[in-house]
């Protein structure tokens, strides 16, 4: 699903965010990406989502080499991945329903069909009764679940999450992670960047560790 081959990313100014990183996340696999702040977790996710481009090396998504990808094709690539952010990036002037429907509107689905899918996604994250509410009326955990519903509504084959539990207490964090594991069970590949080691211990999943832009380990789950 995701393959990094000797990928380096140097930001303008000379800072090396990633150096010679190689790993492979197969279809349907779930992995955690850990490391201290500034270790390169966010940069790695940005390279996958084509928010940034690699300085050296190659990134493949679904067998497609991203290095030569035309800028105009980026939107279509992003539609096949669900991205979840720490600050969830919801639109506060729209209802929960409209927020979740946005990816479907963007990819040109019919409104009626979209409605069905939105309710299905909201049902999965347990927020079906809040579809008419505005994000501001929801708690932090609920807002994050709206973000997840928006990420999965398009039925992507890959979910990317950048510190999805960064602002949540441990109980809520576990709920969110369980949600990701649930999507993984139905075949979605999942890559979650987090520095919450305690949380990772609850899951027997692969952990990719970065340190100072270098790959530390791509091993199996922590003991």
């Amino acid at each position, binding site marked *: 699903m995701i393959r990094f081959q000797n990928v380096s990313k140097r930001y303008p100014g000379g800072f090396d965010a990633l150096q010679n990183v190689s790993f492979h996340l197969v279809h349907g696999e779930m992995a955690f990406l850990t490391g201290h702040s500034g270790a390169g977790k966010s940069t790695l996710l940005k390279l996958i*989502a084509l*928010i940034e481009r690699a300085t050296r090396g190659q990134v493949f998504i679904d067998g497609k080499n991203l290095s030569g990808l035309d800028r105009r094709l980026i939107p279509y690539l992003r539609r096949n991945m669900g*991205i979840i952010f720490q600050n969830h990036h919801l639109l506060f002037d729209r209802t929960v329903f409209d927020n979740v429907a*946005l*990816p479907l509107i*963007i*990819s*040109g689905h*019919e409104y009626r069909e979209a409605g069905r899918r939105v309710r299905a996604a909201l049902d999965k994250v347990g927020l079906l009764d809040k579809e008419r509410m505005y994000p501001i009326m929801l708690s932090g955990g609920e807002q994050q679940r709206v973000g997840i519903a*928006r990420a999965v509504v398009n039925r992507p084959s890959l979910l990317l999450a950048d510190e999805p539990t960064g602002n949540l207490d441990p109980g809520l964090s576990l709920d969110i992670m369980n949600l990701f594991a649930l999507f993984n069970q139905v075949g979605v590949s999942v890559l979650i960047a987090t520095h919450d080691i305690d949380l990772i211990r609850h899951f027997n999943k692969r952990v990719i560790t970065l340190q100072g832009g270098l790959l530390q380990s791509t091993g199996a789950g922590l003991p």
Partner: protein
Amino acid sequence: MTVPSARVWFLHHFQVALASITRLVQNPFSSMMTIAVIGIALSMPAGLYVLLDNLQRLGDSWKGSTSLSVFLQHAVTNPAARELADRIGAWPEIADVELITPEEALDEFRRFSGFGSALDDLAENPLPAVLLIQPLAENDNPSGAETLQNKLEALPETELVQIDLQWVKRFHAILDMARRGILLVGVLLALAVLLIVGNTIRLEIQSRREEILVTRLIGATDGFVRKPFLYSGLWYGVTGALIGWLLVVLVLWLLAGPVSNLALLYGSSYQLQTAPLDLLLVLLAFGSILGLLGAWLAVSRHLAQIEPE
């Protein structure tokens, strides 16, 4: 890559168009400011054009007064002059010929000039015989009159042909100049509309920065992001054009009374023409083009700067 059906495509356009209108209505004060400025800017050249059109028609209605005065040589006697008048009157392009003999002319001059006693001292009548010639309507234009002038000048009896055309030409020249001036004003104000719309859309883009970022992150194409702003520009242009037209109508309505008063004083029943309906169509066309173009400028300049980081 899913390609949306035509029905979905139209539906989406409709929804975006509607949402753009809603956004304008939600901020009535600031939208009205922009729309009013666009309206005023569009009404200036449009209103001037209508006034010019009125002047032009006024000029056309004066055309029928073109006449030629043929001053005959002194040697031509009155019977010869009368015979010449009859000859010219038979020409196909002539409507009417009137002969003023030297005696009649002197008499008229004596009566109107106030030099009566001075004229009595003259040994002989210095005035020539004059033929006043009125061309037929189809020759009653600058070029027709000039052809006639040349033909009259070629007659052996003619001393001088004076044509009452100079001021008509000047009037047309002034109209031409005014038309050019209005065109320049129009171009400048069109540029102003472009900048106003562009700046308004730029502000709108800035205030919706977060939304643009989010939609980009979840796979919106440039076209999708661009669409609502282009519609905003279009609505600004269209509503501005409507306001501009209403302003022109209002100004003409306010001018109509004084103009017909003035016309009455000149013994004319001239009435100011109201704003024609095709002016509304022209304004709407220009307004929407300028609105779209202004929005396009802002969008192509500023949207590229909003990329996820």
